[in-house]
């Protein structure tokens, strides 16, 4: 049984069918790519998978459970975490607080204990902080834990977003153009980080990317989306050699 099973997913905004009859099956542990020209509907697929948009058709199964129509925060608890194409950090919080926010459900204590810093507060906060630092270390961000997240350099903001998503311990991680705006050095470093977390945390990753070097470098399989429909899918090398895919990318109509 695949970890993520998407069946005939669709959504339309007014007259525009942004995603139509979308099918996808990702096995546990895979590093899977979702590619396609601008406006193809890739981000919309992520928004459908995470409950930001409610699908007008189709179903989503995670690990065999139907999660269609769940609210965004429930879907995170179901096991999907994501990053955003336009970075969405908690800008006025420090780097470590960004991660600690994501550890919300790991160490609990009551609002009363929060208001008077009594009871479980100290112990829980200590554990949260240690755990957050551990996560930051994986992403080489532990030296900057007290910096305001909006003051991080761009590439590190992208990394922090991944760290924050990973903190929720998802089964499936969705990355929306993680290398966008990065220079080649940063991209290479990012590729290493992505491969590393896949192996270290034994996680499944679905990523959207325009950088074909990155895609062919780390994705075992890809699905190509064009005008909201699946154009091709399968082993990365074969798909990228497909003349129809090349045509879609070159913008050659008909």
């Amino acid at each position, binding site marked *: 049984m695949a970890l993520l099973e998407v069946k005939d997913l669709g959504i339309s905004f007014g007259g525009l069918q942004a995603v139509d009859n979308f099918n996808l099956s990702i096995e546990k542990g895979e590093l899977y790519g979702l590619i396609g020209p601008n406006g193809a509907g890739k981000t919309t697929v992520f928004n459908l998978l995470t409950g930001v948009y409610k699908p007008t058709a189709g179903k989503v199964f995670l690990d065999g459970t139907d999660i269609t129509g769940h609210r965004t925060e429930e879907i*995170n608890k179901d096991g999907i975490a994501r990053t955003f194409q336009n970075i969405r*950090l*908690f800008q006025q*919080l420090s780097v470590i607080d960004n991660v600690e926010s994501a550890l*919300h459900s790991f160490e609990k204590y009551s609002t009363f204990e929060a208001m008077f810093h009594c009871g479980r507060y100290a112990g829980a906060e200590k554990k949260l902080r240690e755990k957050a630092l551990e996560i930051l270390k994986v992403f080489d961000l532990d030296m900057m834990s007290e910096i305001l997240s909006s003051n991080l350099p761009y590439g590190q903001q992208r990394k922090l977003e991944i760290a924050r998503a990973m903190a929720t311990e998802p089964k499936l991680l969705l990355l929306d153009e993680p290398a966008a705006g990065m220079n080649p050095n940063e991209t290479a470093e990012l590729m290493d980080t992505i491969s590393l977390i896949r192996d270290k945390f034994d996680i499944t990753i679905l990523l959207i990317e325009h950088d074909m070097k990155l895609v062919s470098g780390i994705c075992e399989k890809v699905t190509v989306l064009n005008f909201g429909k699946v154009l091709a899918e399968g082993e990365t090398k074969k798909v990228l050699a497909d003349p129809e895919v090349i045509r879609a990318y070159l913008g050659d109509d008909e």
Partner: protein
Amino acid sequence: MLKKKMLSRNSKGRFTTYGIVIAAWIIMEIFMRAGLMSSHLEGLLVPMTYYAIVAVALNLCVGILGELSLGHAGFMCVGAFSSALFSLVTDGVMPDGVRFLIALVIGVIVSAIVGFLIGIPVLRLNGDYLAIVTLAFGEIIKNIINAMYLGVDSKGVHISFESQMALNMEPEGKTLINGAMGVTGTPHDANFTIAVILLLLALVVVQNFIDSRDGRAVMSIRDNRIAAESIGIPVTKYKMLAFTISAAIAGMAGVIFSHNIATLQSTSQYFGYNVSIMILVYVVLGGIGSIRGSVIAAVILYLLPELLRGLNKYRMLIYSVVLIAVMIINWAPKAIEKRTAFFDSIRKGMKRNGTA
């Protein structure tokens, strides 16, 4: 090692705020005891403190939760009247201290409930609806109470919106709210010291809350709602929580208000939207999200126009110049640097003396 580092991060600045409040209280008390304070200024101390409390409450809503409220005077009003009614009815039945403590709890709980009820329809929406709804709430609650007649006799509670006579009470019945004339005879249970203790309580609750799992959740929603949802934070729940706490603390200020005034009237002067906006000015000028700034701004900006009364003509001129000065001091980067350094040196001084 880690523990020590953590303490310095989390408690940074918090104790400085308590220190400033306590120091201010001591100085005021000394002046009062020594007879160096005019009775005019003495009468301003309690109002100054409850406005500081409402400013702290409003900053939790505006600065931490990121939702604009224009009705915090309304929560004060709810807290003031609900607690005053209790104290009036139970006057003489129990010791003063116990009565005031229960009145306090009642004022806080009733305004928390009202805040919660307002939050249910409004806070689940994404958008700036709270400002308009709280503005309307504040005006409505003020006008309803202003038009209300309430009394008790052996047959129970009577309510009318026409006149005191329409209550149809037995001769020995007791009028609690006499329409626009308001509530008279609420025991004078609050004083400056009690007000300062409650300000400290509000500061502890709000500053601790900010520095907790709940506070982080609330601030993450403020910074980016969609991202907060994506990491599993129940957005509506935390918006409701922060707003309810904010309303409850504003209600607590109302309790001090009603137990420090001879006649409690539900008028614009005390509970109108202009008061809500005045408190918002304290919050904005003190620095949105800066709890200590709210307290300082409330104290300075409340006292100033009152103390300038003697200057008649120039009063508003000086007041506006001070507003501009405060704005510059609070928002100019250089001034912020200097101020941070100043408070750091105070903190170091306190540590050296072993008080922090």
